[in-house]
């Protein structure tokens, strides 16, 4: 296109400006695809719906980085506010770009209008009601150390039991406890878990199940308020290699990996694995397990290598 115009500009066929403009017009018309223009625009139906929603004011609507990226805030039956991000792909073609919910098929569908999206989203929210309740219950009653900045998108919680044992629990969309396992090594906790995991009762809530599991009568109510998440972080041990509790791009908690039970030093699996690889002169893991000497007490230490 550019070169055609260049050619026209340089040719001597156009003796006057009107002739040049005529030719340019013909050139432009033959080269521009109408569709490529219309895809930059938003159709009237969509615009009307946006206007209506804004005028009505019942559902707050926000524009994102372009007029085609929108966000709205939808309340569920218990007045929790949920953000819903969606994108205008073309006339009667809308799709959900992200939600703070565990994955579901509503994210793969295409919708005719904003109302359809909101209806589908609300339906999903009411389906997840028990899920929200369980997570809120865990967050308010237990000392949750992971995920640090949690949303309803995170369907798991890591709960601190003592300073070297954590309980990982997942919550299904139906609000059931799932994949309950211990992190770290507290032998007495692990025995309790093995003896009683079969008694897990899906009719009562996750926190009560955890309490029965470990014979905790009064679950130590967290001494922090939700806002002071800093305090929660302090309870997590520091990794002896990076000297931080938290890694920048991961929610991993430092754990005790050393075979020497008196060592008591914690590492991020990531940091330890990196060191074991370096100290083995770059040789990678054997069968996915990195082994070597503990950086602190020089006893045997091993951890599962990096995933993938």
């Amino acid at each position, binding site marked *: 296109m550019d070169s055609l115009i260049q050619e026209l500009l340089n040719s001597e066929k156009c003796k006057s400006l009107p002739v040049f403009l005529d030719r340019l017009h013909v050139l432009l018309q033959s080269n521009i695809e109408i569709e490529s223009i219309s895809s930059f625009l938003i159709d009237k139906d969509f615009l009307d719906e946006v206007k209506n929603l804004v005028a009505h004011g019942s559902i707050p609507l926000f524009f994102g980085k372009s007029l085609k990226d929108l966000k709205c805030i939808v309340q569920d039956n218990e007045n929790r506010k949920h953000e819903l991000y969606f994108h205008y792909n073309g006339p009667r073609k809308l799709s959900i770009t992200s939600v703070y919910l565990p994955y579901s098929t509503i994210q793969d569908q295409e919708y005719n209008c904003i109302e359809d999206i909101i209806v589908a989203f609300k339906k999903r929210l009411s389906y997840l009601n028990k899920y929200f309740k369980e997570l809120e219950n865990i967050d308010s009653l237990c000392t949750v150390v992971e995920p640090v900045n949690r949303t309803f998108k995170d369907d798991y919680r890591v709960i601190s039991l003592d300073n070297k044992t954590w309980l990982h629990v997942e919550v299904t969309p139906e609000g059931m406890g799932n994949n309950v396992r211990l992190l770290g090594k507290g032998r007495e906790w692990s025995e309790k878990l093995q003896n009683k995991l079969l008694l897990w009762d899906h009719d009562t809530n996750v926190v009560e199940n955890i309490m029965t599991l470990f014979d905790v009568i009064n679950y130590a109510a967290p001494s922090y308020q939700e806002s002071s998440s800093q305090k929660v972080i302090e309870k997590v041990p520091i990794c*002896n*290699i*990076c*000297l*931080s509790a938290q*890694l*920048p791009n991961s929610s991993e908690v430092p754990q005790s990996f050393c075979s020497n039970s008196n060592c008591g*030093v914690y590492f991020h699996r990531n*940091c330890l694995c*990196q*060191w074991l690889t*370096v100290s083995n002169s770059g040789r990678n893991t054997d069968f996915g397990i990195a082994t070597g*000497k503990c*950086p*602190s007490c*020089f006893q045997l230490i091993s951890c599962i290598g990096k995933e993938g």
Partner: protein
Amino acid sequence: MAAMSPSQRRLQKELMSLIREPPPGVTVDGDQASQNLTLWTVHMEGVPGTLYEGEKFVLQFKFTNKYPFDSPEVTFVGNNIPVHPHVYSNGHICLSILTDDWSPALSVQSVCLSIVSMLSSCKEKKRPPDNSFYVKTCNKNPKKTKWWYHDDSV
């Protein structure tokens, strides 16, 4: 400001704790180190009651971006290089934790303490036996030297 790398984060933490709680006789030049986290100058005083009482030494620490997986390069600099059987007159130190026995659980503070204890346990002030040969032939970076540790007792 760009996000800190893991090695910068760790150095920053070490620097803070070394400034706040320095081991006796050890001071770090905090201003210089915070301007360039990869080059630290540490001042060290000879421990009273040892051969180095009253002497002052300067240590230089150089870190790569692989720290703490890679050991720091540590040398004595300045006018007063301690006369010690493991310290060459060019400032290079023969200390196994600085090369083969390095571990990421060690730190600037633990390296300083090791050097203080190495100096303090000295019974006779003298240069290493191969000093003049070594100083003439060695690489500028002591980490390039394949050290033969003289003894484990000091």
